[in-house]
């Protein structure tokens, strides 16, 4: 399945912070077909560093999508039955308007003049796209991590439009620890002289800072156990220590590699803006209790967490589930056993796929 990205331009988007972006573009991909009654559409929401390319082989890069193991013919999000839509988030750098986009007023990239955005802003832009498609109700909104935050926001902000929601390895608000790791990443970028106050487009980008930020990120996405299994204390291409500060250990080599790869596909300013949006995320926005906010949702929920995920620990999913139960809302929840840490929802998907498949089938049946 070779897929192509598309882009739609809208006149303007009002943001939670008070600013307006005009115009605004959103990149998306679709897989499968919309049925006659438009009741089989699924919106898949990507995590921090994802993009609109969720499934299939990219026409542009030749690479599989980030959730290709979950989306496709006969897979959990079965594209023989459902239409799957994935967009690149607002603030991103993969086709949707973000800090690297050109500001039409100046003819230069926005850089740090890009307004600070929120998860709610991302969702509002997605909502414009779904309306543009003429889809009145989404069979499900789903995603892991930051994608789960967007799914929750969708369910609460547009209750009539969301039949079900599947937030995975996610939270109703960013915790101090989650904010702390994001801040380390941001500081690594901003400490790189090449960052230059965000003004580096057409020049040397802050590759070292961005790579360090990504290295920290990767550590938080894995677990102690998965790192032990994957690397242990193995040395990289040597029998003994080098007694220097070049790479000794496999794990060092891996992190450096992942860091350097990331620089080729991600914009440092997008890193700043998107992590800030996650840190600002609190579904209650300080108003009322979690139960009273989630009560606005009419969706059926499937909540999934992973035993070894210490970045978005199960207690955060359980808080969400408890709030839903306290108003007797329809929610299924399970903590899946996995050693892969936060990355589990991307890499250890066999059990997750079965849950999603059954949940979707029964939701689809009931919604007809």
């Amino acid at each position: 399945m070779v897929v192509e990205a598309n882009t739609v331009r809208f006149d303007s988007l009002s943001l939670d912070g008070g600013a307006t972006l005009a115009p605004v573009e959103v990149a998306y991909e679709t897989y499968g077909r919309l049925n006659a009654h438009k009741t089989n559409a699924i919106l898949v929401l990507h995590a921090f560093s994802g993009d609109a390319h969720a499934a299939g082989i990219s026409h542009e890069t030749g690479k599989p999508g980030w959730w290709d193991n979950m989306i496709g013919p006969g897979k959990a999000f079965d594209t023989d039955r459902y239409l799957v839509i994935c967009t690149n988030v607002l603030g991103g750098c993969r086709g949707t308007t973000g800090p690297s986009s050109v500001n039409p007023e100046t003819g230069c990239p926005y850089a740090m003049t890009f307004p600070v955005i929120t998860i709610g802003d991302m969702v509002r832009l997605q909502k414009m796209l779904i309306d543009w498609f003429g889809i009145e109700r989404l069979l499900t909104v789903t995603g892991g991590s930051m994608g789960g935050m967007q799914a929750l926001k969708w369910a609460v902000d547009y209750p009539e439009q969301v039949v079900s929601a599947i937030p995975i390895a996610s939270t109703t608000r960013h915790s101090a620890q989650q904010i702390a790791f994001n801040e380390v990443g941001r500081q690594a970028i901003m400490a790189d002289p090449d960052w230059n106050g965000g003004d580096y487009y057409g020049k040397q980008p802050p590759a070292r800072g961005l790579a360090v930020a990504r290295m920290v990120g990767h550590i938080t996405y894995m677990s102690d156990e998965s790192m032990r299994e994957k690397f242990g204390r193995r040395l990289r291409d040597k029998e003994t220590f080098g007694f220097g500060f070049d790479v000794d250990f496999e794990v060092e080599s891996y992190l450096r590699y992942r860091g350097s790869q990331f620089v080729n596909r991600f914009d440092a300013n997008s890193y700043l803006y998107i992590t800030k949006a996650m840190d600002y995320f609190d579904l209650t926005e300080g108003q009322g209790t979690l139960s009273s906010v989630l009560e606005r949702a009419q969706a059926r929920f499937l909540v999934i967490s992973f035993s070894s995920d210490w970045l978005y620990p199960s207690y955060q999913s359980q808080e969400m589930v408890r709030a839903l139960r306290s108003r007797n809302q329809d929610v299924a929840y399970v903590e899946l056993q996995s050693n892969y840490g936060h990355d589990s929802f991307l890499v250890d998907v066999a059990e997750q796929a079965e849950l999603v498949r059954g949940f979707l089938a029964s939701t689809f049946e009931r919604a007809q």
Partner: protein
Amino acid sequence: MKTSFVREVLGRSDYAIIGEIVEPKTRVLDLGCGDGELLEWLAAKKGVDARGVELSGAKVQRAIARGVSVYQGDINEGLADYPDHAFDYVILSQTLQETQHPRDLLREMLRVGRRAIVAFPNFGHWRVRTSMMFSGRAPRAPRFPYEWYDSPNIHVLTVLDFEDLIALEKLVVERRFFLAGHRGVATLPNLLAEVAVYLVRRP
């Protein structure tokens, strides 16, 4: 002695009775719902809004894959989240004897539900009694196959014990069923019933 055959649901007579008790289009919570087979059946045949609580992650996975909304958690502490009278029926099938605080649980069931359906194995059955009398050891019977040290049954009870608890809690019994195999038991239930099923509510 009058006996009658009870039909089966999913190979179980107590399920058949529960299936008969539950009114269509009601809200049902099944505690310790296993892989959700009863809930799936109730949803399909009675159109109920079916929810479940189950501790075993593997069973919860199978239940969700069946399309049943099941929450992974401990029934001993899990009910506190629900508002009062969230359900028309709260079902506890063959699990009462495994719970930490059966009396508290029964009260919680009747807080979150208008009615409770409790099915439990009867420790007063004659086979259990004779096993203990002749062996002089913790009784073993088809419904109680475990060694005492690894039995999940930490609060075994008889039909009379349950009747006492009902009186103590001043509950109203709407229906009671007694089973031996697939037969209904009409007389001497405390001696002859292997399984009892009660439908109770607050007055």
